[in-house]
């Protein structure tokens, strides 16, 4: 199972390195405006072909690039109801604080759990290779976080149940 993780992350890393070649691009449609073209989607020629990297049908990454911006959407593995709820609450917690995150998008792209938007202004202020490192580490860590939360949830549920039922024994 985990022997697909390394090639999956390597593919994501190399695609992100290539897609993060961004430059400042004034809008062609509205004068004096400068918008992330991947969000505005107004001129087709400045958009790149979207790439989906799948580990299996439950874990996918969609990378949409353009001349001045990049959108990365991640579908996190959620195998049962508990994990679905935990993932939803976790990503909602992050997305409500998207301003502090800088590159996080407030709403995920439909069909995915969390989305990042990187623009040329971000790559001017931050190192591109560190941004890529951040996203790849985030993908690794979010699975671990959700499993940890699920384990601690189950442990607490067991302790609560034991303590309650103790009074009847």
């Amino acid at each position, binding site marked *: 199972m985990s022997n697909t993780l390394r090639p999956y992350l390597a593919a994501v890393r190399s695609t992100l390195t290539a897609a993060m070649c961004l430059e*400042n691009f*004034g*809008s*062609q449609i509205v004068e004096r405006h400068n918008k992330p073209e991947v969000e505005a989607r107004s001129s087709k020629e*400045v958009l790149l072909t979207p790439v989906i990297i799948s580990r299996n049908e439950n874990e996918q990454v969609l990378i949409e690039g353009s001349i001045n911006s990049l959108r990365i959407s991640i579908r996190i593995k959620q195998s049962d109801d508990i994990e679905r709820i935990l993932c939803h609450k976790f990503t909602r917690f992050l997305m409500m604080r998207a301003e502090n995150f800088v590159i996080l998008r407030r709403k995920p792209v439909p069909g995915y759990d969390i989305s990042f938007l990187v623009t040329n202004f971000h790559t001017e*202020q931050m190192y591109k290779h560190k941004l890529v490192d951040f996203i790849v580490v985030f993908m690794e860590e979010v699975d671990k976080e959700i499993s940890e939360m699920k384990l601690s949830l189950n442990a607490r549920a067991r302790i609560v149940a034991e303590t309650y039922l103790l009074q009847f024994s």
Partner: protein
Amino acid sequence: MAAVESHQILIGTPITSHSFNRDRTELAISPNSNEVNIMQKQGSSWNVIHTLADHDKLVTCVDWAPNTNRIVTCAQDRNAYVWTWAPETQSWTPTLVLLRINRAATHVRWSPKEDKFAVASGARLISVCYFEQENDWWVSKHLKKPIRSTVLSVDWHPENILLAAGSSDMKARVFSGFIKGIDAKASSEVWGQKLPFGTVCGEFPAGGWVHSVAFSPSGNAIAYCAHDSTVTIATGPTQPIYVIQTNTLPFVSLFWASEFAIVVAGHDCAPYMVLNNGSQWQLTPKIDNGKKKEVSGNSAFNKFKQMDTRAQQNTDVELNSTHQNTITCVRPFVGTPDRVTHFSSTGVDGQLVIWDLLSAGIANLRL
């Protein structure tokens, strides 16, 4: 090859564009803002001596004409200004240019004779501007067909007539920029006989947005680099193009160092060369020795301390190259157009680096 000098001109701010004056004592840069800084070399560092602040939005390109000592700047506010040095007031005075474009200007270049300049814009056209004596301002003529998207860069032919343009509709084109009254006869053996203003002498395809174009020193060929990490050389409208596929990140800037050598640089943060060894063009390994890593005594101690306090596995944030981020502009620094010996590069990391082409042992190429 060694970088001869590197200067951290700006900290944390990209240098969008740079241009030197004729004797390389002064430098005009656009520090990713509405202003243009004129810097002078004082000792071993560059200090700002003037600030040109007439634009309202990001200044996308500056070009300094070496012989007439005029600077042209263009910005995303749809304007361009020509600045002339006024010795009486010891300042640069702007002259408005009537570009008549309704989108951002992206690139500007003086022609070789410095009597006209071309401005590439997001309005899907190129403005070729010349000075009108009667009204004392610069007027423009538009090159529109068949451009379908933002023009990203322009370059002039050495004979002052033809203009190459790279655009985000994935094509590189050669136009005629002949202006009646300014230019004499317009014709070229390679590119076409009759060349009235606006003739498309050649249209060449690319696999991605064409970031930069340049004419060779003789004017018989153009080179362009595109977003699909290729460098293409075209020698005339009817000849087949020569495409060099590279496995590097895309290049965004290039110039010809001689008839057989092209210097390219871009998102890989280091310059490369494309050399013609007689029959084919090839990409050389990157011409950058890289930073020497200083190994201090307690680096092992620091490494484990980082792992303990910050859970950071590797502390290496710096890249192993002189530039730490994309190189956005490379220009010849010393030498004639057909034998460039030094070139300058600026990038998103705010550094200006002067490179020496001869010390790399590129003596085996036919210069």
